[in-house]
């Protein structure tokens, strides 16, 4: 038997094995279930809306907020500096944006807690790093940051800084989202993170 016959048999056999495997071409989780469970139970994976508000108010460039709502909802208003990855397309889009971004932190949010926590497990299952969930989602953001009022008589230093932070982030939220659509779009374009592509080709 000569080399090319041997090579043919090897390739053909592996081809048959591949044809029998449940390959789909779409992504699958690549971590061990036990590791994913520890990630899912990780207390540090949640950030409060106050923490998120601080990132917004200080325009922290090492943090990127990811809005998981539909693009229609995102275009109406969103937390300043966030990018939109609709939850139902998260599996296809997120790895291209998140992987390979060094020490950047990604905070997921949706209206409630549901989509963001699902997306968190998906991201961790796909081995993406530095993922966090904004606890309570936009409902909590509105409740805490946007509707923040100080009603007491005396304010402690800590309360004051918290209140100032909420006020600053809340004002930014209102101002940017009140801009006319054309200017808003310009703002988003400037913030847009393009998915990195590998250049390809042959010969």
């Amino acid at each position, binding site marked *: 038997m000569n080399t090319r016959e041997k090579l043919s048999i090897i390739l053909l056999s592996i081809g048959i094995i591949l044809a029998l495997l449940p390959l789909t071409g779409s992504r699958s989780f*690549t971590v061990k279930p*036990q590791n994913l469970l520890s990630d899912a139970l990780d207390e540090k994976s949640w950030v409060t809306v106050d923490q998120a508000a601080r990132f917004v108010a200080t325009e922290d460039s090492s943090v990127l907020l990811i809005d998981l709502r539909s693009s229609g909802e995102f275009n109406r208003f969103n937390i300043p500096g966030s990018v939109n990855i609709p939850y139902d397309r998260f599996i296809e889009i997120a790895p291209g944006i998140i992987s390979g971004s060094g020490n950047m932190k990604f905070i997921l949010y949706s209206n409630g807690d549901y989509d963001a926590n699902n997306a968190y497990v998906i991201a961790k299952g796909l081995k993406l790093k530095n993922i966090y969930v904004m606890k309570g989602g936009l409902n909590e953001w509105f409740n805490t940051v946007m509707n923040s009022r100080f009603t007491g008589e005396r304010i402690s230093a800590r309360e004051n800084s918290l209140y100032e932070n909420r006020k600053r982030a809340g004002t930014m939220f209102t101002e940017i989202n009140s801009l006319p659509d054309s200017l808003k779009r310009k703002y988003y374009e400037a913030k847009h993170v393009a998915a990195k592509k590998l250049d390809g080709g042959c010969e």
Partner: protein
Amino acid sequence: MNFIKKYKVILLILIPVVILVLTRALDTNHFRTDAKKLAEPSFSGSNIIIPDKVNQLNGEKLLIILGKDVIKHDLAGVVIKIIPPDSILYKENIRLIRKHDGPVILCSAENDLAIRIWMLLSQMGIENLYILSDDSEPEVLKYEFRPDTTVKPEL
């Protein structure tokens, strides 16, 4: 012996591939392929069930309480099992869930936890799995954004 000698190269390559593929395929402690398809119920929210609707599910219902919290709902005809979240992947627990013929409902004091465990188990190929929630539409915004019309863009 002659056979092995003749096909040495072929066997040297094929056998390791077959062994690796078989170990991967027969290992139940890993995730199934196609994450998107497995996550589908979470896109529409069809995996969320409110206490009133639990009885409408067909088959024997198994309610898994993640954590120590006592269940506050009065659910009749439901088998209840308390499992601490960090031991959900123990062999006996996974076997219990896989073997259970009928819907399995996850419940936790903090909804976040049940959501995360739901995704984890679904990706392992467990179907007919639900999350018990008081809110049937957790992704609805309960507030309204009022734009400030006095805002002038900086030019």
